[in-house]
Structure formats: structure tokens, C-alpha cells
């Protein structure tokens, strides 16, 4: 299968995602400059982390209007697999492909460290290799990760099992103490209703090799590969 990794001015995790796709997973990968609009040759679009457009105005607010975004919206509407990581998640929120908004971290600090997250939904194409309740060690690196959505939006997410990952303690408690950034309901990752768009603040591409200290994120990419390959065989 082929991963397409979008490069905005200011993206800085694009090469890590490319490396994981090619070298760790042994799949094909290509970069998509944000002015390109042809996505036909890709099976999964990755919106990587970074500081697109310097985070000016609001995180993701300007990138959301890059030419590639119209194609991504079309790709997603046709059921294509899209994953937004960190700044990529922020862009998906600004584009309205996922509900809610990211605000500055509760304590106004940029946080760069490993955290624990709990897999809440293992019935997605991104989490097929996890079991619900699995606790992953995975790094976060962001200044705006305090997820917020109104009460109706939160109910909608909960009722439809759309909260995929939540921040937790090493033993799996999803309480305020294990919430690094003040995110509503400890939310670290959500999915759209159709189940083909995942947004998450932690960086799976930074935890896909033993040498980097944790493998918590690797099953996400592997799950995507399995899901796409299964679809192609059918």
C-alpha cells in the first residue's frame, strides 16, 4: 500500500512518518506538497505534526485552506483513510473533518514527554491490532493540546464510541492527574462517525521502533496496512 504524507510549510514530522512507512513498515510512501491536489495514488493520507504556517492565528487555521485540503476532504468523503497527528489533528479540527477545537495547554507550557494513553475503541481500522483497554506509552509534543468540544459534541463522541484514545496513568486511570494538558475528558484521539478519519495528539511515528524507547504507536500504522491490504484482496 502507499502512504501519502502531506507537507505544509512548517511541517516537521513528515520525514519521521515517511521513514516509518518505508523503513519500518516496508510500504510505499510519497510526499504531497500542500499545493498538490492529486491524491489518487495513495491509500492513506497522513497529516503530520509540526507548526504549519508557524501556528499563526490559530494552530491549523491557515493550513486548513491549503489547496491540498479540498482534495483531502473529497478523499475522506469517499471513505479514504486519513490520519492527523498533532498539528495534523489540529488541521482536521479547523477543517471541520473532526469536531471540536484545540486550545493552549492547561498550564501554558509546551509539553514534550512520554505519556500513557488508553485504547478506548479497538473496532477501528487504526486500532485493529489493539484490544480495548490497552495502555500505550507514547510521546506528546505540543503547546495546544487541550481538546474542547461543547456538551452536545462530547455526548455525540461518547455515545458513538468515537473517543479512540484517552490520557491515563500507567495503571490505566483516566483522571485529572494523568491528564497532561487539560483536555476535556482526557481525550487524546477521536475518530469521525464513518470511522475513516483519526485525529490524535500523541506521536505514533515517534514510538514505532524499539530504539526510540517505545513501540506504542507502531500497531496504529500496522493496523492501517492490514486494513488496506484486506480491502484490496476483497
Amino acid at each position, binding site marked *: 500500500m502507499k502512504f501519502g504524507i502531506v507537507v505544509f510549510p512548517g511541517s516537521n514530522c513528515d520525514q519521521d512518518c515517511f521513514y516509518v512507512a518505508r523503513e519500518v513498515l516496508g510500504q510505499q510512501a510519497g510526499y504531497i506538497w500542500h499545493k498538490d491536489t492529486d491524491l489518487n495514488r495513495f491509500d492513506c493520507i497522513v497529516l503530520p505534526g509540526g507548526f504549519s504556517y508557524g501556528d499563526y*492565528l490559530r494552530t491549523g487555521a*491557515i493550513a486548513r485552506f491549503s489547496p491540498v485540503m479540498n482534495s483531502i476532504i473529497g478523499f475522506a468523503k469517499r471513505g479514504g483513510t486519513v490520519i492527523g497527528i498533532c498539528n495534523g489533528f489540529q488541521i482536521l479540527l479547523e477543517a471541520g473533518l473532526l469536531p*471540536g*477545537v484545540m486550545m*493552549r495547554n*492547561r498550564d*501554558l507550557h509546551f509539553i514534550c514527554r512520554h505519556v500513557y494513553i488508553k485504547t478506548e475503541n479497538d473496532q477501528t481500522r487504526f486500532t485493529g491490532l489493539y484490544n480495548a483497554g490497552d495502555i500505550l506509552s507514547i510521546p506528546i509534543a505540543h503547546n495546544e493540546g487541550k481538546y*474542547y468540544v461543547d456538551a452536545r459534541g462530547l455526548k455525540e463522541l461518547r455515545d458513538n464510541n468515537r473517543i479512540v484514545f484517552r490520557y491515563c496513568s500507567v495503571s490505566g486511570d483516566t483522571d485529572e492527574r494523568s491528564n497532561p494538558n487539560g483536555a476535556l475528558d482526557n481525550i487524546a484521539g477521536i475518530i469521525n462517525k464513518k470511522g475513516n478519519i483519526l485525529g490524535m495528539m500523541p506521536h505514533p511515528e515517534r514510538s514505532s521502533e524499539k530504539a526510540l524507547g517505545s513501540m506504542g504507536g507502531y500497531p496504529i500504522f500496522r493496523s492501517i496496512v492490514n486494513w488496506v491490504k484486506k480491502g484490496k484482496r476483497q
Partner: protein
Amino acid sequence: MLKAEINIILKNGVADPQGLTIKHALESLGHKGLGDVRIGKWIAIRLDYKDKKRAKEEVGLMCKKLLANPIIEEYHFKISEE
């Protein structure tokens, strides 16, 4: 030329940790009796328009589409002659 001055601020009820931090700093300087402190953005745009009504419509669209995020922010603007 016309000039639009836009204020964007977090909606009431949305926590503003920057505002709270500033409030604490002001209190530590001895300022008393402070209520909520809210921090926002101020954006000025020069517009090569003659018609104020058109400018108002355009700036309203700019705010809705890009400048403010309606989930957490509200905006106000005024248009004046330069």
C-alpha cells in the same frame, strides 16, 4: 481607504488561562479589586473599498471563515475611514 479593526475574544465560559495568569501577576504588583482578565486578538485590515456596507459584509465573512473559531471565540469589529 477604509480600515477594519477586529477584536477576537474567547467566549464567556471558556477558560482563559493566560488571562488568569495575567490577573495573578497584576495582583502580585499590588492591584486590587480585579475581576476576570480576558485576553484576545486585535487585527487591523486596510480595505481599498469605498462602500462601508460592502466592507462590513466582507469582514464578517473573513471572521466567520478564518479569523475566529466560532466554537470558542466571538468577534466584534468596526469599520472606519482612514
